[in-house]
C-alpha cells in the first residue's frame, strides 16, 4: 500500500490534475471563442458593410466611413472579450499552478505543520 500511495501522490493524481487543468484551458478557449475572435478581429460587425457602386466623392467617403465604423464596432467588442479572457487566465493559471504545487507538497506541509505545532506547544 505504501508504494501505491507514493504512486498516487507523485504520479497518478498530479497527472489527473494536469489533465484537468489542460481541459479547463481548452474549455476557456472554447467559451470565449478565442480563435474566432482573433481571426475575425476587424471583420465587419455582422457583415454589415456597404459596397461602393459609383457616385459622388461624398458618397464614397460615407461608404468608407460606414465600413470603418462597422469594423470598429467589431474590433472594440472582440477586443473586450479577449481582455476578459486574459483577466480570467491571469487568475486561472496561477491558481492551477498553485493547486498542483500544493498537492505535491501536501504531505511535506503536513509534516512541517506538525513539527511547528510542537514548537509552539513546547515553547
Amino acid at each position, binding site marked *: 500500500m505504501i508504494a*501505491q500511495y507514493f504512486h*498516487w501522490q507523485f504520479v497518478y493524481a498530479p497527472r489527473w490534475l494536469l489533465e484537468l487543468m489542460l*481541459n479547463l484551458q*481548452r474549455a476557456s478557449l472554447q*467559451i470565449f471563442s478565442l480563435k474566432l475572435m482573433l481571426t475575425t478581429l476587424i471583420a465587419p460587425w455582422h457583415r454589415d458593410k456597404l459596397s461602393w457602386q459609383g457616385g459622388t466623392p461624398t458618397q464614397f467617403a460615407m461608404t468608407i466611413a460606414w465600413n470603418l465604423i462597422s469594423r470598429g464596432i467589431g474590433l472594440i467588442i472582440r477586443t473586450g472579450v479577449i481582455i476578459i479572457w486574459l483577466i480570467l487566465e491571469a487568475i486561472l493559471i496561477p491558481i492551477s499552478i498553485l493547486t498542483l504545487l500544493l498537492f505535491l507538497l*501536501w*504531505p511535506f506541509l*503536513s509534516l512541517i505543520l506538525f513539527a511547528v505545532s510542537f514548537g509552539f506547544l513546547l515553547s
Partner: protein
Amino acid sequence: MNFVYDSRIRYQDVVSHRLLTSAPVKITLTVLLLAALLGWLSLLFFVSTNIMYGLAFLLTSLAGANLLIFTFGATYFKYLPPSKTLVDISQSKTDQFNIADAATFELISALGRHGRQPNKKHLDRGLRRLIKSKYSRFITRRLEIDRQKLIAAFETVLPDLTWPDFSAGIVKTASLVPHRYLTPDHALGAIMLHPAMQAVIRSIDLTDKDITFAVWWGIEQRFGQQQKRRWWDASRLLSFSGVGLSWASGYTPFVDKFARLPPGNIWDDQLLGHETKVDELINTLARQRQSNVLLVGDPGVGRIGIIRELYRRVKFNYAHPDLNGHRLLYINLGELMAQGGTSAGQYSFVSQALHEMERAGNIIAVIDGLSSILGRNKEQRVNLTDILSPFLSSAAVRVVVITSTEEYHLRLKTNQELNHYFEVVMLPSLDPDATLQRLALTVPGIEKQSRLTIPYKTIRALVRGTTSILPQIPFPERAFDFLEEAIVAAQQEKTAVLTPTHIQTLISRKTGINLGELASSEKARLLNLEDIMHLRMVNQNHAIRAVVKALVRARAEVRSPKRPIGAFLFLGPTGVGKTETAKTLAEAYFGSEDHMVRLDMSEFQGPDAVSSLIGSADRPVGRLTSLIGDHPYTVLLLDEFEKASPQVHQLFLQVFDEGRLTDAAGRNYSFLHSIIIATSNAGAEFIRRAIKDGQVPDGFDAQLKDLILSKNLLRPELLNRFDDVITYSPLTPEHITAIARLMLRSLNKRLDARHGITVKITDELVEFLVSIGYNPEFGARPMNRAIQDTIEYSVAQQIISGLTTPGQAIILPPASLEPLAKK
C-alpha cells in the same frame, strides 16, 4: 486457452479501499476538521497564546494528513484501470490467462476473497455474494428474478461448477456483450447463461437472448451513470458553447421569425441504430459544394432526434471544423408559405428567406414540409426548382431537407434537377433489436415520469407484439405509441407495474387479435385443429390433414421464422370446399372467420397488375399491401391464382421466400403472421377423372404437378415454394348427403335464433335434396341453391302467412317441395 481466477493481489486493493474509507477514518476526519476549524476560529477571535497556535497547527496537520489518506483511499483503487483488457484476453498467446487482471474493481470486490488456491467453497461463497450484491440488483430486478431463488437454483443445478469453468463463462459472456473490462454483469450473465441453467431460465419464460440483453442493459445503465458523475472528463467540460459565434455572420431577422428548434421527446435523445447517419449527415454538409442532404424517413423513425444531435454537435464544436459554430435553423415551409398568401407571395417569401440565409453565411437550414412547395402541378415544380437551384449549388447555405419515404419515392426521386444537388441519407424503420435497446435505455426516464415500473418482459412483449402491425408507422414510434397508451391504461388501473398483459390487451384491442391467447392456447388448438375443422367440413380428409401437418410443423418453431406461417396451393373443381377450408382455418387458428381476406387474382392479369397490388406513383395505396397492413394476422386467400400475370407471380415469390414485401412508397409489409392459400381450378378435369370415391391413386400428386407445369400454368420455382399442394377430390353423393345435413343444421340455427322455429330433418327430406341438388361438376353449390329454392322459400311462405308458432318443428314433405325445385 485455460482461464483461471486469481484475485489475491487485486483483492488487496479492495481491502485497502475499504480500510481507508471505513467509518472510523471518516469519523476521525470529520472530528479533526471540525476541531481544526474551531481552533483557528478561537485563535482569531478569542485566545492567541502559543498553546492555541500549537493546537491549531497540530489539528490542521493531522486533519490534512487524514484528508490526504482518505482521498487516496477513495480515489486511487476504484479508478485505477485493470492492467489487461478484454482485447488482451482474445489476443493472448499464452496457455493460461488470469481473468482477474482484466476484471474491474467492482467484480473483484463482488466475488470476494479467496485463499491461496481458489476452491469450490470460495466459488460458492463468491457467487452468493455476487448475486446478493448491489451489482446484481439492476439485472435481477429488470428480469423479475428472485435472487434467493437464483441462488438456490445454481446451487442445485451447478454443484460441480469450477473456477476455470466459471471464468471461461465470464469471458464468453463478455464476448457477447463487449466492454473494455470484465464487469459483475458479465459474471452474473455467466451464471445464468451456463448450459445447465437453461431449463431454469426457460421455466421463467426467458431465453439466452434475453439474458444477454439484460447484461448489455446493466452495463449501459451503470456506465451511463458513471459517465454523468465524471465532471472532470473532457467531454463534460467542453460541452459549453462559445460566445459571439455569429458576430462575424449576417443577421437573419426574417428567417428568425419562423425558425426554431423542434421540441424533442425523451426518446429523441437516443441515437441507437442511427449513429452512422449523423456522421453521414455531417460529412456531406461539410463539403464545399453540393453540401445538401435529403433526409428520408417516415415520421416517427427519429429524424428530429438526428437533427437535434446535429444541433448539439455543431453548437458544442464537435461536428466538423467547417461546421462548428454554425447556426442551425429549423424551418417549416408550411408556416412560411402560409404567411405568403398568394402564390407569388409565397415564392417571394421563400426567395427572401434563402437570400437572407446566404448573406449570413453561417446557416445550416433544416427544411421540413417540402411537400407544401413541391406542388402536384408540374409547372409549380419547375418554378421552384429554378428558385432553389442557385442556393443548393453553393456552399453559402447548407440545406437539410426532411421528407417522408412516400414523398421521396413517389415525387422526389424522379425530379432529376433537385436530386442532383442532394445526397440522400435514408432512415429506414429501426429493426426490432435496435428498438428494444432504445426502449431499454429510455425506460428509466419514462418510469420516473409515469411512476410505474416497467420490467424487461413488458418491453419484450411490446416489441414482439408491434413488430408486424401498423407498418405505416415506423419503429421506434410505433412501440412508443403503444407504450404511452399502455402506461395511461395502467395508471388508470392504479397499478404499480406495467405488465405484458397490459400490452397484449392494448394490442388485441387495436388489431382484433388476442395475442396472449394465440400463444398459450395455440398448442391446444393446433393439436385439435383436425377435429375442429372436420366439424365444419365434410370429406377432404387428405386436404385437412396436409394443412394441419404443415401448420403444426410451422408453429412448433421448427419452421424458419422468416416465412409466412404456411403457404398452400389448393387444386380442385369448383365448390368442393376450398374457400370453406380457408374460412374454417381462419376461425380455428385466428379465432374468427373475419380473419380472412380474399383477393380475386383474375383481376390482376394486365400490365398494371403489380402496381395495383403494391401501389405506384399515381396510386400510392396497393390492394395487397393495404390488406396485409390492416390485417397482419390473417388467412390470405388468393382465388384463381394461376390467372394472375407472371409479374404478379414473381411478386409472390418474394412473399413466400422472405415473408415481406416493399410497396411503391418504400414501406415494408410483413407476411410473417399470415397463412397464404392460393386456389386454382387448374387440372380440375384430371382430378375428376383420377379420383374416384375419394381414393387418391399412387403417384397422383407428382402427376398433377407435371400436368400443371406442362401446361405452363405455374412456374416450377413458384410451385416449389408452397408448403404443400393439396388436391380437393370431387364430392360423391355420400358427401353431398352429409353436406346437406350440415346445411340444414345451420339453417335451423338461423331459424331458431330469429323465429324460434326449426325444420325437421328427415331422411326423406335429405334424400330429396340430394336428388335435386347433386351435380358433381359444381360441387356443393347446387345443394345450397336447392335448399334456398325449396326449403327456405317454403318456410318463408309459412312465416309470412302466420302459420308458424315459436317452438314448432316444421315438417316439409318432399312431395310438397317438388314443384319448387328447379331442374
